[in-house]
C-alpha cells in the first residue's frame, strides 16, 4: 500500500495513494480537517488523488500557515510545508468568535472540537453531563453515554479529540413508537420543571441547554430509543438486531477519570452505531445508516419541526438585530381595516417587522414564530419604545403547540385579527391545516385572518413553497372561515429589483 504526498497548494492536496486510511491536516499544529485517502477521493481507482480544501474551511484561507499532513492512526508525518493562501500578511487562524480552535466535525462543519482541551477545560461539560443524567434518572428512564461519548470512554477512557459534543441516550421500556414519544414529552416536562431548557429535535430526541456559571451555554443531546421484535432503534442512526440483555442491567465506563452509566454491553451498542470497525479511530467518520432505518426513524419520530433548520439558518445572521423599518402592504391593510383596540396575532412573524410596526401604531400584538430567538431584535426594539409586543413560540407542525396555544386564546375575549404573511407557504400541508385550525380557535368569537402566500409565479422566493390559493381558500372554509376577499397581486419589496418580484395571493377570511 503506497501513500505519498505529491503536493500541497492553494487548491488542495495531491496524493499518490493506493489504499484507504484516514489522514489529518494541521495548520500550525492545529487539526483542521481529516479525510480518508480512498473513501473521500473523487476517483478512488486512480492512485493520483486530489483533495480540494473543503468549502467550510476555505473562508479561513487567507494568510500563511505551516501545513502538516499526517496519518491519523500512527501520527506519521507525510508532509510539512509553509504555505501562503490569498494575499493577507498574517498567520491563518481557524478559530470561532470566542477564539476557540475549530476543526471539521463529522457533519462537515467547522466546530470547536475537544482537541487540545485540558482536563480542567472539560470539567464543566462533565458536570453538565452528571446534572442531565441525574435528572433523566429521576424522571424514570435509565440513561447512558451514547455515540461518540461512549466510543471515547470505551476506546480511550476520554473524549475523542475530533468530537465536539456529549451524547446521552436511553432505551425506553415501551415497545411502541407512539408510547416512546409520549414518554419523551413527559421527560421534557419533568426536566423543564427542574429548570432545564429543552430544544426538541424530534419525537424521541432533544437537547438540554444548560447555562454555566460563567454564562456559557452548553447543549447536551439526549437520544431516545426502544426495542421491538429483537431490534434496537435509537435516534438518530441505529436500527439493528439487539438483545435486551445488552441494554440492561447497565454497566459503567470511565470518562476523563469519572464513572458514567453505559449499556450492559457497551461494545454491542458501539457496533450497532459504528459498525464492526468501531475500534479503529476515524476522525472523518460518516454515518452510513441504511435507508430503511432512516425511513423508519423519519416516519415514526420526525416531522414535528418541518423546515425549522433552514429558517434557523436564515435568521441566525440577524440575531438580536432590530427588523427592517416599515411594514408590508398586508399589515398596512389590516391596520386600515381593523379598529385600534383589535389585538393582532402575527403568525410566522419572522424577524418581526410587521409585528413591531403594528405595535408601534398603538396595538397590542402577539408575534409567533417557531425559530427561537428570531424575534429577539423586535422584542428589544418594542421594549425600548414602550410598545406592546408579546413574543411567543408557535410550531404549526406540532399539534401540541397549536392546540395548547389555541386553548389559551380560546379563553380570552378581546377582539382579534390574525396576520399570516408568508407562513402558509413556508410550511407543509400539515402546517397549513394547523394554521387554519389555529385561526378558527383564536378567531371563533369573531375576527379576521389576513393571509398572503406565494402562488408560484415570478421569481421563486428562497425557502417558500408555492401554495394554490383555491385550496387554501377551501381549507379556511372547512375550518369555519368565510373568505371575504381574494386578490392576486405582484409583491415587490422596495429594495428588490423588478425581476425578483413574485406573484402572491391574498385572502381575507372572517370568522363568526
Amino acid at each position, binding site marked *: 500500500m503506497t501513500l505519498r504526498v505529491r503536493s500541497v497548494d492553494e487548491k488542495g492536496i495531491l496524493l499518490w495513494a493506493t489504499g484507504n486510511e484516514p489522514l489529518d491536516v494541521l495548520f500550525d499544529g492545529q487539526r483542521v480537517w481529516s479525510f480518508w485517502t480512498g473513501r473521500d477521493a473523487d476517483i478512488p481507482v486512480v492512485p493520483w488523488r486530489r483533495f480540494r480544501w473543503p468549502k467550510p474551511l476555505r473562508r479561513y484561507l487567507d494568510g500563511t500557515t505551516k501545513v502538516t499532513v499526517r496519518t491519523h492512526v500512527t501520527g506519521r508525518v507525510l508532509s510539512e510545508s509553509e504555505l501562503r493562501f490569498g494575499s493577507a500578511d498574517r498567520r491563518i487562524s481557524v478559530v470561532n468568535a470566542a477564539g476557540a480552535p475549530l476543526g471539521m466535525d463529522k457533519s462537515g462543519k467547522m466546530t470547536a472540537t475537544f482537541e487540545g482541551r485540558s482536563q480542567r477545560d472539560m470539567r464543566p461539560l462533565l458536570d453538565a453531563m452528571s446534572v442531565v443524567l441525574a435528572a433523566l434518572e429521576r424522571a424514570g428512564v435509565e440513561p447512558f453515554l451514547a455515540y461518540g461519548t461512549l466510543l471515547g470512554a470505551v476506546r480511550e477512557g476520554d473524549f475523542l479529540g475530533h468530537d465536539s459534543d456529549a451524547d446521552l441516550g436511553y432505551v425506553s421500556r415501551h415497545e411502541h413508537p407512539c*408510547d416512546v414519544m*409520549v414518554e419523551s414529552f413527559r421527560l421534557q*416536562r419533568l426536566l423543564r420543571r427542574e429548570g432545564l431548557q429543552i430544544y426538541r429535535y424530534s*419525537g424521541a430526541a432533544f437537547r438540554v441547554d444548560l447555562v454555566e456559571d460563567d454564562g456559557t451555554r452548553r447543549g447536551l443531546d439526549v437520544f431516545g430509543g426502544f426495542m421491538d421484535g429483537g431490534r434496537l432503534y435509537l435516534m438518530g442512526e441505529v436500527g439493528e438486531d439487539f438483545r435486551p440483555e445488552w441494554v440492561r442491567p447497565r454497566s459503567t465506563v470511565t470518562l476523563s477519570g469519572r464513572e458514567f452509566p453505559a449499556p450492559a454491553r457497551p461494545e454491542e451498542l458501539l457496533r450497532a452505531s459504528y459498525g464492526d470497525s468501531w475500534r479503529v479511530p476515524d476522525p472523518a467518520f460518516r454515518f452510513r445508516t441504511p435507508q430503511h432505518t432512516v425511513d423508519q426513524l423519519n416516519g*415514526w419520530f420526525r416531522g414535528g419541526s418541518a423546515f425549522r433548520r433552514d429558517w434557523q439558518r436564515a435568521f441566525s445572521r440577524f440575531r438580536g438585530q432590530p427588523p427592517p423599518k416599515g411594514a408590508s402592504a398586508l399589515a398596512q391593510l389590516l391596520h386600515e381595516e381593523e379598529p385600534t383596540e383589535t389585538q393582532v396575532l402575527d403568525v410566522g412573524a419572522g424577524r418581526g417587522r410587521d409585528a413591531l410596526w403594528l405595535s408601534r401604531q398603538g396595538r397590542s400584538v402577539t408575534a409567533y414564530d417557531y425559530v427561537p430567538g428570531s424575534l429577539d431584535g423586535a422584542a428589544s426594539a418594542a421594549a425600548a419604545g414602550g410598545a406592546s409586543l408579546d413574543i411567543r413560540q408557535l*410550531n404549526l407542525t*406540532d399539534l*401540541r*403547540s397549536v392546540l*395548547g396555544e389555541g386553548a389559551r386564546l380560546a379563553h380570552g375575549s378581546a377582539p382579534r385579527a390574525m396576520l399570516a404573511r408568508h407562513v402558509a407557504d413556508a410550511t407543509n400541508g400539515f402546517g397549513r391545516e394547523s394554521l387554519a385550525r389555529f385561526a378558527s380557535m383564536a378567531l371563533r368569537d369573531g375576527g379576521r385572518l389576513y393571509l398572503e402566500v406565494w402562488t408560484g409565479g415570478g421569481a421563486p422566493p428562497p425557502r417558500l413553497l408555492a401554495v394554490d390559493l383555491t385550496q387554501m381558500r377551501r381549507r379556511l372554509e372547512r375550518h369555519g372561515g368565510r373568505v371575504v376577499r381574494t386578490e392576486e397581486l405582484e409583491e415587490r419589496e422596495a429594495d428588490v429589483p423588478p425581476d425578483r418580484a413574485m406573484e402572491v395571493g391574498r385572502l381575507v377570511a372572517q370568522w363568526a
Partner: protein
Amino acid sequence: MALKDIVKRTRARRDLPQRVADLEADVLELRRHNLRLAEIVDVVTELVVPLSSRDQDKIDAAIEKFNESL
C-alpha cells in the same frame, strides 16, 4: 395453465413496481400516525383532563404549564 391466467400473472408482474411504491407510501403514512397520535395523547392527558375540572384557575394553570413544557 389457461391463457387468461398467464395474462393475469403477466399483468401482476408488470404492476409490481407500482404496487411496491404504493405499499411503501402506505407504510410511511402509517408510521406518521405515531407522532400525531402521541401528540393527541399528550394533549388529552395534560390539557383535556384538567379542562374537565371546570375550575378556571386550574384550567389556566394547566394551559400555561403545558405551553411552557413544549
